[in-house]
Structure formats: C-alpha cells, structure tokens
C-alpha cells in the first residue's frame, strides 16, 4: 500500500461502504462484526424457515412476520457486512441507500396497488364474458326488453251465475284440460236437478201406466176382432173396445212429448250444475285471474274469469324497439333471450315479425318486434319479462 493511499484511508470525513471506520483499524473488531452479522443472519434465517412451516402461529400473520424478518436480516447485512451505519462519516452512503429504498418502495407498492385495483375493475362475470365470446365482440346488436307472449289464449267465461265458493287457480298455475279452477255455490242448481229428476220420474211412471192401459186396450180390441161372434151385441162391444184403444193411444201420444220436455229440462239443469264448476278447457298456464272468493258472477260479463295460455313448443317474445334501432333489425336475425328465472341460461330465437307502431307523444318507440324461439321445455312461460339481444348484421 502506497503512503498516499494509507493516508487516504485515514481520511477523517468519509468512509467507503464496506469499510469499517478507518481510524480504528482493529482487525479483531472487524472480524467480530462479521461474526456477529453471520450469527444474527443465521438466527433470522432459521426463524424464517421455521415460521414458514409452522402451524404454531396464526396463519395470516406468518407472511407479515417473514417480511419483517427479511427486512431485519437486510439491516443486519447492511450494518455488519456492508458497514453502513448512522455514523456521520457514512452519511453519503446512507443517503444514497435511503433514496434507493424510496424508489424500491414506490415501484413495489405502486405496482401492487395499481395492479390490484385494475384486477378488481377488470373482473367480468362469466356470463357476460361468454355472451361476448359467443356473439363476437365485434358484432353489433340491439338489446331490448319484452314479455313472452303466449301462443294461444283461451278465456274462461261463466255460463251460469252464482256466488264464487272456491278459487283453485291463480296466475302462473299450470292447468290440464278439465281441471277445476273455481266453484260456484251449486245448491240452487242441485235443487233444480233434483226437482227435474223427480218430475221426469213421475212423468215416466205415468207414461208407463198409460202405455200399459194402451196395450191392455189393444189386446182387448184384438181379442174382440178375432172373435167369431157376429151378433150385433158383440159388434157393439168391439166398436167400444176400438174407441177405448184409440183413446188410450191418443193419451200416450200426448204424454210422450211431455216426458221428452221434462228430460231435456233435466239435462239442462244438470248442465247448469256442471257449469257451476269452472274448468280449464285446455292444457296451459293461467295468465290472468279476474275472480275472487265470494264474488257474484253472471254470464255475459265482459271480463273472463280466467285466461289460460295454451302450452306450446314455440314461445313468442314481443319487444319494443326504439326508432333508432328499428332500421338495423331484419326478419330472420338471430336473437339471444334471457330471463331472470334462469340466470346464465340463454334461449336462442329469431326475429319473425316486425310490426310498425305509430310513435306516440313522449316515447320514441317505433316498432314491435316478435321473436320466435323454440320452447320445448316450456321454460319461457307466457307473461315472463325477458331480455332479448338481437344480433344485427
């Protein structure tokens, strides 16, 4: 070592990083410093490795503890190996280090913060992502709300009047043909049926009696005509028997239509009794109910008691489009239908009709569009609000 370098080495104001304070050139002190650093490092490293595999400590705290241990060990390295201290002769080195630490904290902290925020904001639900992927991000589309319209409607109207005694169907009830939806108080109709039944019975009994009389008169007449007795007294008896026969025949003839009348009256009464049971004429789903318990209804009212939508393999969705969107939609365009009841499920259909509507004041709705979609499982129930996205070309 040259003299000047030795002198430099004893410069009082500064220390190079890695050098011990040069005014006490004690080899053993320096060795002690390295040994102390090694010992502390081994201790900290061993603790860190132990902590990483242990279940003795509350789990979430371990990464934090590991980071703290790492920072401590870096400090140990800086002080005991690199001899960066807080002594005044090391100020420049410490300042440079502090600046470096600032930059490191900015890079690491900033990156983690920004990327975590972006990750959170980029989160896209799987359904939306799939819709984008299937439709293609580049394709254009028109989205509108609508209601699933039934394929055919059947109104149930009352044929008799009465007080509603029970209501068994409500909106959304699935019904079979012949299923009872409501019942009227039927006592009145039962009484009529009983009365008519009794009348028919007595009329039939009477008719039978008259017919018996008739056959008796007929037999009497035949016996007298077949008699070989040609005396005037016998002839007179024969005429009498013929007159009796004809009278009996007239009575029977007169009685028969009466029975027929009574029978049809009974039939009518039975029909009325049956009409007190309100039944669905078709398989389908109830889409409207205008009757309530205790209500008195009479035939001829404007509103039907129930409206039943027939089951169908095809669902129709009616949506309203804004004026600005109508021009893009063509018949035959594909559409994706979603309903709230089946989240994530998509029904495909296509535009089957475009019905222009007169724009009314205040709205800019310009057209009704009918989208027809296959509906084999009946999942698109009539009356369900639905969302349709028409993929335009």
């Amino acid at each position, binding site marked *: *070592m*040259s003299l*000047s*370098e030795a*002198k*430099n*080495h004893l*410069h009082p*104001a*500064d*220390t*190079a*990083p*890695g*050098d011990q304070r040069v005014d006490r*050139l004690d*080899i053993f002190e*320096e*060795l002690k410093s*390295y*040994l102390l*650093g*090694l010992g502390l*490092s*081994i201790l900290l*490293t061993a603790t*860190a*490795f132990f*902590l*990483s*595999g242990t279940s003795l400590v509350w*789990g979430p705290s*371990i*990464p934090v503890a*590991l*980071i703290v*241990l*790492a920072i401590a*060990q*870096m400090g140990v*390295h*800086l002080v005991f*190996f*690199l001899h960066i201290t807080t002594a005044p002769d090391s100020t*420049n*080195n410490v300042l*440079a*280090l502090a*600046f*470096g630490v600032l*930059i*490191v904290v900015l*890079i*690491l902290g900033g*990156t*983690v913060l920004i*990327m975590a925020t972006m990750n959170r904001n980029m989160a896209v639900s799987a359904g939306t992502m799939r819709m984008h992927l299937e439709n293609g991000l580049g394709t254009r589309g028109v989205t509108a709300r609508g209601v699933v319209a039934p394929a055919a409607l059947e109104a149930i109207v009352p044929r008799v009047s009465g007080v509603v005694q029970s209501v068994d169907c409500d909106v959304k009830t699935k019904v079979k043909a012949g299923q009872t939806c409501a019942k009227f108080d039927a006592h009145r109709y039962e009484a009529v049926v009983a009365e008519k039944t009794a009348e028919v019975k007595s009329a039939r009994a009477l008719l039978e009696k008259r017919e018996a009389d008739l056959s008796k008169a007929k037999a009497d007449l035949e016996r007298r005509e077949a008699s070989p007795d040609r005396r005037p007294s016998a002839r007179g008896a024969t005429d009498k028997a013929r007159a009796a026969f004809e009278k009996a025949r007239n009575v029977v003839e007169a009685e028969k239509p009466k029975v027929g009348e009574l029978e049809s009256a009974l039939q009518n009464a039975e029909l009325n009794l049956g009409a007190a049971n309100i039944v669905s004429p078709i398989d389908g789903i109830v889409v409207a109910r205008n009757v309530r318990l205790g209500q008195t209804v009479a035939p001829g009212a404007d509103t039907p008691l129930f409206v039943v939508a027939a089951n169908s393999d095809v669902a129709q969705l009616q949506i309203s489009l804004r004026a600005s969107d109508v021009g893009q939609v063509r018949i035959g365009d594909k559409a994706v239908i979603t309903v709230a009841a089946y989240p994530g499920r998509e029904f495909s259909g296509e535009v089957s009709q475009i019905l222009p509507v007169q724009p009314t004041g205040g709205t800019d709705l310009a057209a009704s569009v009918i989208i027809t979609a296959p509906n084999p499982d009946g999942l698109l129930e009539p009356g369900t609000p639905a969302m349709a996205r028409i993929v335009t070309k």
Partner: protein
Amino acid sequence: MTYVDTAVGRGDLESDLAHSIPRRTLGYAEGDLASKRIVVGFGFWVFLISDIIMFSAFFAAYVVLVDNTAGGPNGRELFNLTSVALETGCLLTSSFACGVASIGARLRSNVWFHGAMAATFVLGAAFLTLEVRELGGLVAQGDGPTRSAFLSAFFALVGCHGLHISVGLLWLLTMVAQVYAKGYRADIMRRNLCFSLFWHALDIVWVALFTVVYLVGMRQ
C-alpha cells in the same frame, strides 16, 4: 463544475492536474477531497442501489403474477424448501467468507485472503449448482418459464439473481488472479472493495428472494 468536482483522488490530482491548478486551490482541495477509495466505493454503492431498484421491478412483476398459474402448478407444488435452505446457507456463509477475505487483504495475509476467497467461490458455486439444478429440473418436468405467467416471473427473478452470482464468481476469479499477480496494490484493493460490496448486495437480494418467493410462496 470545478476541478475539485472532477478530481477523484489525490493520486490523480498529483499526477494529472497538479500543473494546471494553482497551488492554493490544490491545498484547499487536499484538505477536503475524499480519497479515491471512498469515491470509488460510493460510486459502486450507487450502482448497487440501482441494481437493487432493477431487482425490485422483477419482484413487483413476480408479486403481481404469482397467482396467474394458467392451470399449471403453483409455488407450493414446485418449491423444495430443503434445497432453498441449503442455497441460503451457502450464500450466507459465502458472504461471510468474502468479509473474511477483505480482512485478509487488509492484513496482507495470503493465507487468509486466498483461503477465504476460495471458500467464497466454493460456497457461491455450490449455491449456483443447487439453483441451476432446481431450475433445470423445473424445465425438464415441463414447468419452464413458458408454462405460465407465474413461472415466467419466477424464472426472470431467480434467473436474474443467478446471473448476478455467475458474474460475481467470474469477478472473484479475476480478483484472485490480480492479487496473485500484482499483490495488494491500492487500485486492486479498490476493485476488491467493489467486489465484496457486490457479493454482500447479492446476499441481501437473496434474503428478499427466499422470503418473498419461497417462504411466502409455500404458505399460499
């Protein structure tokens, strides 16, 4: 900017600038200027800090991408803590040996200097061998840097540190050769100072690395 700022040590001042600087300025500078060893050491210290800042970018990338395994294995399934503990031990004792070597150099003791440098080299090479074996094993089993974003970031970070270690080992060999050939000259001792700073700094980076990548990674 003055002559004082550009001067990097008294030896240089005497040889190069003495004739062009008035005596008085020189006398003033002599009393206040840092020695060349201090300036070189500080300059290299600044370089090391910039190197650590570069490592911090790799760390940031790793922390962001650590969960993006693309259906592939995560750190917990890949890392072998025994191997990492061995690597850590090697590098720590290597760093200690490097410190002992700088004491040996100051003592002008060939036995201490060369002995400690040899230990530094052997331990550093052992670390590098373990690391190369680990990374090579990952590539061989199909979990190379192309497997997922996590593994890309892992290989970039660990590989960059390994590259620094490799360069450091080559530097160590040249230092030993220089001391052997030229003795404990002031300029060579300045280089040796820089080398030991470099080696210690790599150990500091490894502390951050084994903590953030391996120990925290094993807990996920």
